[in-house]
């Protein structure tokens, strides 16, 4: 967001502007807004003031006391306190993940079987599917259990490209940098034991998709994850690669060739077998290509229904994306009346639910804003 003339206070009714101000303050950059606060503080609602000066508090009771002293009504206080409890769990999880990201890069860590066993037990308690897989990948390599590492590498490649939008941890720049370093480290570690070029390149590409900064692009460049159109066409000649990782190659070829060629290649790549074996994280691709064969459609729809019925937000989000295809939506609606409802209703419920988990807060608020939900109360999630 661009802050132009802050001193005019004229943007302040804008929901996105409020979000931007709160995010800036939360990131510890309050001084960048000094002029704004000086001139516009009179126009701030008491709720916005309470948010902007929300201190770091350790427990729910302290939060309750702060809110009470700032005139927040009981009903709302209870909601915010409950949200604080959820956010606290996410913060704790993030701390655990950051600790692992730093500790497991050290050479002398996970050296003995006992240490690795403790590490595995620690991961079993980690409530985050993606990071659990990522850390297990490193643990498997450090155990020199290469078949296990290879199988985890394949699972990581098949993970939903959208997981960050529903289970994201809102990393700051420093944390993001640490994650990038860990991703690079894990690829180097893997290459020490297993020099399989294509798989490493694919994983590097997948890792690079997790961030948008230039820092993440180095993951690709250092691992040669770059395919020319000819390379990509050749990948589609490899029956194993094209079928197992159909979504990956589809993404790589998108916008690089004609729709007709892309569709033709993809038609060849998917089969009953590849669809049966497909992981939920790969199903996003059917937003863009919905095969006409009934036998294939049945498998796809069975999977999408099962994913929607699950509690996993990353899986449900993939289904929501596929609903943007009118044909998929119609097919699902014929099976389940829930899908007859307007997409914006389904999305609004979904993102309200995501917001209540404490993960991917910024994205959930932004999506709700796009759907017309400008409830100022929701902005508390940014500050607690």
């Amino acid at each position, binding site marked *: 967001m661009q802050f132009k003339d802050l001193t005019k206070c004229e943007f302040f009714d804008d929901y996105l502007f409020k979000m931007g101000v709160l995010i800036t303050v939360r990131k510890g950059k309050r001084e960048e807004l000094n002029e704004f606060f000086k001139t516009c503080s009179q126009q701030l609602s008491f709720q916005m003031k309470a948010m902007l000066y929300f201190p770091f508090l350790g427990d729910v009771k302290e939060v309750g006391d702060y809110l009470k002293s700032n005139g927040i009504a009981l009903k709302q206080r209870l909601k915010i306190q409950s949200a604080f409890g959820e956010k606290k769990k996410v913060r704790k999880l993030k701390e655990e993940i950051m600790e692992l990201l730093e500790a497991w890069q050290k050479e002398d860590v996970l050296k*003995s*079987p006992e240490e690795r*066993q403790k590490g595995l037990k620690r991961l079993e308690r980690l409530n985050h599917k993606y990071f659990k897989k990522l850390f297990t990948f490193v643990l*498997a390599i450090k155990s*020199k259990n*290469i*078949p*296990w590492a290879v199988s985890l590498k394949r699972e990581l490649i098949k993970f939903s490209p959208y997981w960050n939008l529903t289970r994201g941890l809102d990393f700051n720049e420093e944390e993001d940098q640490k994650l990038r370093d860990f991703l690079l480290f894990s690829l180097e570690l893997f290459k020490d034991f297993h020099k399989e070029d294509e798989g490493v390149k694919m994983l590097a590409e997948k890792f690079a998709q997790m961030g948008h900064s230039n820092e993440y692009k180095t993951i690709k460049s250092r691992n040669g994850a770059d395919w020319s159109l000819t390379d990509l066409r050749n990948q589609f000649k490899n029956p194993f690669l094209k079928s197992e990782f159909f979504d990956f190659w589809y993404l790589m070829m998108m916008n690089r060739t004609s729709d007709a060629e892309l569709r033709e290649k993809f038609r060849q790549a998917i089969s009953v077998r590849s669809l049966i074996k497909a992981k939920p994280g790969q199903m996003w691709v059917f937003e863009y290509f919905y095969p006409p064969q009934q036998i294939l459609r049945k498998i796809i729809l069975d999977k999408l229904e099962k994913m929607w019925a699950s509690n996993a937000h990353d899986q449900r989000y993939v289904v929501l994306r596929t609903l943007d295809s009118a044909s998929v939506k119609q097919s699902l609606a014929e099976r389940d009346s829930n899908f007859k409802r307007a997409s914006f209703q389904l999305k609004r419920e979904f993102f309200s639910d995501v917001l209540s988990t404490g993960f991917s807060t910024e994205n959930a608020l932004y999506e709700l804003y796009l759907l017309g939900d400008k409830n100022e109360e929701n902005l508390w999630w940014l500050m607690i």
Partner: protein
Amino acid sequence: MSLKDDYLQPDFYRFNEDSVNLAKFMTSHSSYKSGRVLEVGPGCGIITCELIAHSHLNFKDILFVEREVGFKESLESNMSRLKTPNNLNVQYFYEDFLSFRADGFSLIYFNPPYFFTTESRPSPDIRKEGCRRMAREDFISWLKHVHSLLNTGGEFFFCHRLNDWTAKAFGFTEVEVEERAGATFYDWKKN
């Protein structure tokens, strides 16, 4: 758990009679009294479960080293369902055996993959492949590695399709050899 049909097993692999027979062979011949026990490549844990349920062997401290993580659920579930003594310490390591470093074992046993890689065609299922076949040189390294992990006087049991493994070549003394249902069962002692 007494019937072998009760054991939880993964979809990709079913244990065979050799595991049950190895447990029986050990029950008849083992002189194990105390100390740490190691099962290598336990799969879903049949041998150990059978030993705990049906033998006189009184384990206190048992470690499993299994490379195929697809067995994790069935192995840990079968062990947890077993009526074991309260003080039994069980540890699971999902590692490559040759990289596994620990020592001081009184008893080690395994039922290795049935075929060598040079003798049969690979399975299209990568997990099944790891359970069915291994390289001959890796098997020999396993035997040497067992020797390095065992205490002097420690016992080592295994079964194999081939009956020409010589204890002496690996620094062991042969205590007993028996053929049963097409497999050979070995009882070796570390000198």
